[in-house]
């Protein structure tokens, strides 16, 4: 039993590294890292609502509600970013609203709060077969869309005004990027939890951005750093008997600290 859980954890860490390399790198390029943190808490609010609905009304996967919540927020923030240059306030409001929703529903389902707690801190060693399917489908979808629209996303991030002048629909592509981030975040929620999503999605990409000198280099480097952090976290957790995502986050943070000296 342990073997299959361990294999799932290792596969999950590879998939997380793919998300970090693609979505994480572009979030760093765009300077949307606060958005990642905000959307993770939006996903948590959605999951809390999902658990509440499951317990009181009808059966529904909390992660599905988390996905709907996150995508909804992504579309709102995409629109806000198009209207205003600084979206930090909009993200901050979303952050506060999400946490209020999360706390509200968690306080109403106290006896099942451990389920929600699993989404706050996550556990990559407890992934079920259905979790793996959700993770795989989400990551494959994100990666396909990412590479199909790769150059257009890059152009829109680099110089939105010129991209728009040349006929690219900036609002559409920025919203697409935000939605991809939202899907990526929800995919990671069960594995590493809302708090540590940032650690494994953004920190490897931020380190790689400092260490490597090109877009492609940053993407490749983020994959390797995220993979080292994730696999290192799983490996150490077996010996230290602590949460693997926390160790992975620590390794990623140490690598980032080292990158600062470059």
């Amino acid at each position, binding site marked *: 039993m342990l073997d299959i859980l361990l294999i799932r954890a290792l596969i999950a860490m590879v998939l997380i590294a793919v998300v970090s390399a693609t979505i994480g790198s572009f979030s760093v390029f765009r300077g949307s890292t606060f958005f990642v943190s905000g959307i993770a808490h939006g996903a948590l609010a959605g999951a809390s609502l999902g658990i509440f609905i499951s317990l009181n009304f009808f059966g529904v996967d909390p992660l599905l509600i988390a996905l709907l919540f996150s995508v909804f927020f992504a579309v709102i923030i995409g629109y806000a970013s198009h209207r205003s240059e600084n979206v930090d306030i909009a993200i901050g409001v979303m952050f506060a609203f999400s946490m209020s929703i999360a706390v509200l529903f968690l306080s109403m389902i106290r006896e099942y709060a451990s389920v929600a707690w699993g989404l706050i801190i996550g556990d990559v060693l407890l992934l079920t077969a259905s979790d793996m399917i959700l993770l795989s489908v989400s990551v494959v979808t994100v990666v396909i869309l990412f590479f199909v629209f790769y150059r257009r996303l*890059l*152009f829109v991030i680099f110089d939105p005004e010129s991209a728009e002048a*040349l006929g690219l629909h900036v609002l559409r592509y920025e919203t697409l990027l935000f939605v991809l981030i939202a899907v990526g975040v929800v995919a990671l929620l069960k594995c590493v939890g809302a708090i540590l999503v940032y650690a494994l999605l953004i920190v490897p990409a931020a380190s790689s951005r400092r260490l490597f000198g090109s877009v492609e280099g*940053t993407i490749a480097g983020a994959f390797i750093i995220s993979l080292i952090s994730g696999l290192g976290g799983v490996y150490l957790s077996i010996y230290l008997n602590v949460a693997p995502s926390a160790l992975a986050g620590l390794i990623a943070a140490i690598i980032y600290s080292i990158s600062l000296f470059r």
Partner: protein
Amino acid sequence: MGSRYRGVRNLSAIEVKNLTVRYDGYVAIEDVSITIDHPSLVVVMGPNGAGKTTFLKALLGLIPYNGTVSIFGKSPRKVRDRLGYLPQRERINLNVPLKVRDVVLLPLISRKTGIKRYDVKRAKEALEAVGMVDFWDSRFDSLSGGQQQRVLFARTIVTDPDILILDEPFSAADVRTKLALIDLLHKLKREKTVIIVLHDINPLVECTDRVILLNRRVLAYGTVAEVITEDNLEKLYGTKIPVIRQGPVCYVVGGDRHA
């Protein structure tokens, strides 16, 4: 790809009628009506906050407006492939570690899956025109401000547009960059329409066909000799600015005006 309007003379490239742009109730430009011939070089001058960039964005169809903007008889959105835009350099996100070749190739390949040899050839020609082809593999964010400006200029001309819309192309440009771009503009204006926002008209005064003095409204529109007068500049900037005349050419003393 050749310019559709190459060799065409005295065609109205741009017709603007009663153009008004509002941002959240604030009127950025009001009731602007002008006609710009093709090919020609038109300089837009005005103090900070006069609506110069807003005017350019309206021409490009990037912002909502009231009134009519017609480019070669069509709305700006329908002729975007014929427009080249150089935004102010500060609008560029230097956090993206693009190489110089990527920056220039993006307009050509952003909608494609592969890169054709022809695209690379055009990108190299555009960089050659601004003297930056040796920086093909350099990181864009590692270049000086002037070098970045030249690369962005190359990106603007790489699609061979009929109309170039340039927002302060000489800002942060060193003398070498300025001279390179001025030389290129002299050549480009023979076949293209160039609309250029400048604080200092002096470097281009000899090849400028028309000048727009803009301060939310058009204060004056005409040739350099007609428009660049001490009275007009005083109305525009709110301060006395001497003008030296040499035949049909006139120079603004203390050229750079940000008032």
